[in-house]
């Protein structure tokens, strides 16, 4: 029963990076000020000092006493308690956090972790995050690592703050520290209840201490707030029309903009330059302030939003294509053939030797992953106020701390002259348009000398957002005479899954379009091999990664990065190997699994689902078509996120209509172990999201393009799950309070496609290896089976 601790070394490592962004929210303030929201529709000017600037002007969660000097001199080092926490005379706690809220409930959970350590009520805490001038950088908010990585940092800061407060209380009350207890921010002597002092009374000065890493954090079995389903602190504003989103902000003097871009993009450039621009008519349109052309970057700025929309639609623009898009029908062949950096990342035993000498039965299969979109429900938005001596930019980027260095050079400012303030947008699920739109808005604001609000169009978001890239996975496996796996050879063709700005102006779309254009920067290979290494005990293994250098569309992080595609290949192939062995797919996995946590997750999911052990396939299930001709099947899949973090096993029941190829998931059971559960209700919400988004990516989602443009530009051409598609979802949460909390926004999506594919096989005997499993692909696979 060891309390989790964080070493100062690892903490400092985490804090590396620059930039940050913060947004404030407070349960107490949210409810206290809720009635004011409607009136506070105007945000103070940003960019230059206002009389009483705030972290989030006009919004809740603003420390009242903050002056411009406070902001400019605030310690954001992360090395001191004060850079993370402050307490005022009323005992109200402000948490300064480097991780932003992406709609997952993170701020609620992080606040729980801090108030737990401090022994203060949830309602006394306000969390501010993602303001590059106010909050320490904790890098990009991504990878579902915020609870896992940032949580312990904040816990440690809170534990150190509590130690300082108890030291002060001890001196003030004349009572040894060991004889003090704290409840709801009130310190009381254990043996003399008359001796009492509040945190507010003790907060006479800043903490003035470096983080030592020495203060003990609480033992998990004393937790009172962590582990509880605390309601979301951000929900009231979101559900009552408050200024919950960046999109809702209004800045004094703000004007509106739209940008016009070619619907072509590659990793090494936009793929088209400006051919011709005729803006004569547009300049005469009502409300149009300016048409901005800088190189191949085109934007219109107007007094009113609808005027900007009309003006953008009316612009006469032609593009000169420099890099045609490849034939979508040949995309997977091209992925194999394109220039790539080859890397062998796993070599265990002797794969070729095992295939040659120990293998009784061998199997080969290829799986493909289509281009898929973040498809945020609202297009990306930003408000930028760029002035000669500095800029303030509201952004929904996951990586606010990297934006000053990426945007500054584009607008002629030093990074330290650029303040980014995070404000939540629609869920992003990764690197969507939020970064690019921020740079676009900054360029337009600089051009017109006014604060500019820019929201991309729906078509723009689908066309310009970075894509979850297409991939190809080749697998070979060998079974020995006993039907156990002796060899596993995995080859993946993938581009990097991150083209985040990384502080590079050339990685912003506008940076590549302005005159002179900035070359995209190479930031290394990331994420394409995520979950390519499996967790099974297989004596001979090899993993080879071909890092594609010229993918058709700009790739970047989409929920789980390569984790979903690689888990799809691994776990579908595992099912194919189980079939080859004539084994029950769950039993087959368990026989190759040594990790007891993985075993329990799989057993719990299977038990909850009522799994009946048998080999997969209609000949074993004895399924007979229903009156309407449909058949049913059940599939299983497992993944441990990034092969080393949270565990998820899923059982998916499907109904397949062999007549028209439609597949419907009817029930999904999830077993889930992410260590300590901070907020069970929030966790279930995230798992629901993984299941539903995972089903969409299995059954519906595919970006299409022709030679010159992305063609899936709206909701009638890019299909996501609707209410009619939603299965019954049942979740088995395994709480391990003695284990560190692990990120939970992505693990459960990883096994989803494989479980659907395996269920379709169980129902029909047809293997689906190329997603999404649309009716056409299902019919094709069925035809292949029936010959």
């Amino acid at each position: 029963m060891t309390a989790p601790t964080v070493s100062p070394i690892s903490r400092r490592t985490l804090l590396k990076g620059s930039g940050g962004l913060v947004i404030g929210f407070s349960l107490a303030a949210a409810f206290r000020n809720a009635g004011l929201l409607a009136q506070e529709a105007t945000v103070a000017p940003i960019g230059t000092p206002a009389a009483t600037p705030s972290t989030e002007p006009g919004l809740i969660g603003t420390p009242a006493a903050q002056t411009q000097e406070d902001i400019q001199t605030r310690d954001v080092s992360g090395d001191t308690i004060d850079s993370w926490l402050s307490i005022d005379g009323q005992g109200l706690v402000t948490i300064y956090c480097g991780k932003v809220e992406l709609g997952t409930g993170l701020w609620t959970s992080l606040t729980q972790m801090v108030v737990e350590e401090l022994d203060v009520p949830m309602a006394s805490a306000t969390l501010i995050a993602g303001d590059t001038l106010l909050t320490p950088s904790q890098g990009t908010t991504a990878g579902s690592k915020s609870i896992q990585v940032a949580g312990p940092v904040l816990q440690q800061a809170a534990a150190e703050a509590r130690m300082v407060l108890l030291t002060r209380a001890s001196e003030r009350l004349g009572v040894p520290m060991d004889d003090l207890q704290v409840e709801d921010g009130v310190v009381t002597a254990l043996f003399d209840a008359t001796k009492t002092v509040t945190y507010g009374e003790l907060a006479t000065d800043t903490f003035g201490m470096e983080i030592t890493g020495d203060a003990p954090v609480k033992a998990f079995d004393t937790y009172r707030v962590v582990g509880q389903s605390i309601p979301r602190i951000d929900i009231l504003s979101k559900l009552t029309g408050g200024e919950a989103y960046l999109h809702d902000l209004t800045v004094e003097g703000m004007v509106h903009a739209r940008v016009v871009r070619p619907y072509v993009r590659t990793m090494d450039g936009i793929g088209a330059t400006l051919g011709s621009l005729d803006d004569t008519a547009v300049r005469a349109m009502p409300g149009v302030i300016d048409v901005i052309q800088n190189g191949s970057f085109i934007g219109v700025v107007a007094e009113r939003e609808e005027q900007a929309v009309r003006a953008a639609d009316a612009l006469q623009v032609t593009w000169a294509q420099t890099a045609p898009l490849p034939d979508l029908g040949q995309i997977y062949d091209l992925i194999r053939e394109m220039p790539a950096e080859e890397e062998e990342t796993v070599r265990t035993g002797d794969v070729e030797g095992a295939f040659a000498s120990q293998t009784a039965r061998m199997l080969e299969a290829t799986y493909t992953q289509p281009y898929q979109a973040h498809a945020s429900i609202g297009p990306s938005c930003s408000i930028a106020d760029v002035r000669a001596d500095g800029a303030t930019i509201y952004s929904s980027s996951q990586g606010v701390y990297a934006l000053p260095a990426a945007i500054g050079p584009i607008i002629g400012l030093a990074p330290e002259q650029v303040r980014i303030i995070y404000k939540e947008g629609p869920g992003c699920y990764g690197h969507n348009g939020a970064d690019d739109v921020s740079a676009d808005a900054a360029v337009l604001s600089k051009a017109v000398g006014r604060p500019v609000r820019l929201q991309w169009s729906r078509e723009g978001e689908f066309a310009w957002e970075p894509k979850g890239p297409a991939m190809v996975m080749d697998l070979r496996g060998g079974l020995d005479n006993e039907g156990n796996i002796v060899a596993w050879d995995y080859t993946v063709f993938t581009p990097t899954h991150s083209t985040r700005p990384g502080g590079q102006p050339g990685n912003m779309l506008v940076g590549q379009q302005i005159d002179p254009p900035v070359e995209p920067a190479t930031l290394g290979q990331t994420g394409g091999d995520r979950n390519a290494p499996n967790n099974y005990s297989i004596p001979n293994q090899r993993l080879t990664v071909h890092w594609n250098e010229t993918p058709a569309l700009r790739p970047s992080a989409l929920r789980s990065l390569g984790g979903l595609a690689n888990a799809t290949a691994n776990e579908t192939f595992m099912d194919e190997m189980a079939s080859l062995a004539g084994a029950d797919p769950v039993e087959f996995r368990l026989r190759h699994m040594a990790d007891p946590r993985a075993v329990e997750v799989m057993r719990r999911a299977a038990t909850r689902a009522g799994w009946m052990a048998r080999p997969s396939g209609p000949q074993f299930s004895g399924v007979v078509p229903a009156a309407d001709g449909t058949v049913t099947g059940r599939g299983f899949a497992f993944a441990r996120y990034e092969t080393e973090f949270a565990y998820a096993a899923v059982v998916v029941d499907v109904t397949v209509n062999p007549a028209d190829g439609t597949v419907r998931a009817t029930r999904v059971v999830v077993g889930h172990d992410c260590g300590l559960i901070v907020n069970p209700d929030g966790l279930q919400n995230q798992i629901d999201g993984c299941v539903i988004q995972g089903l969409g990516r299995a059954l519906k989602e595919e970006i299409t393009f022709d030679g010159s443009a992305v063609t899936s530009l709206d909701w009638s051409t890019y299909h996501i799950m609707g209410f009619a598609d939603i299965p019954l979802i049942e979740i088995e949460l395994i709480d391990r309070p003695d284990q560190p909390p692990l990120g939970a926004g992505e693990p459960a999506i990883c096994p989803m496609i494989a479980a659907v594919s395996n269920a379709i096989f169980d129902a029909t005997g047809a293997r689906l290896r190329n997603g999404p499993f649309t009716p056409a692909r299902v019919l094709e696979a069925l035809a292949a089976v029936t010959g």
Partner: protein
Amino acid sequence: MQSTPATALSITVNGQSHDVEATPETPLLYVLRNELGLHAAKFGCGLGQCGTCTVHQDGQPIRSCVVPVSEVAGTEITTLEGLGTADDLHPIQRAFIAEQAAQCGYCIPGMMMTGAALLQTTPEPTDAEITEAFAGNLCRCGTHTRIVRAIQRAAGNVAGTTA
């Protein structure tokens, strides 16, 4: 600088009459958000496909991103702010909060407007009726099951709960 079209258009929103500055063909959504400061209805697609901009016209759900403001003159427009406020929540808002039916939450105001209209005509909907009513509302986070539960809670169809 401000171009003020010479229109005398007036619309009624949440029981109050407002003179509209926008030109008649301007989508209602922009007027609600930018002229009246009513931010619950969101821009999602501008194509009438996703439902994030849903408001009521004489009690019926409409997509305010594709309805010209001139078309709603003489009718009663209700936005989420007209149903309930943070201080005086509408039962459907209470139900969504009770079910914690939001992830990013961007689509949820539109969901509540669709739900409130459904409950007006179908006070005790089946899940199938909810699914049908929400066919034009998209959620990308995957909050669907909670949204359905929230509608059922608001309808009083959840045992032991009142919204």
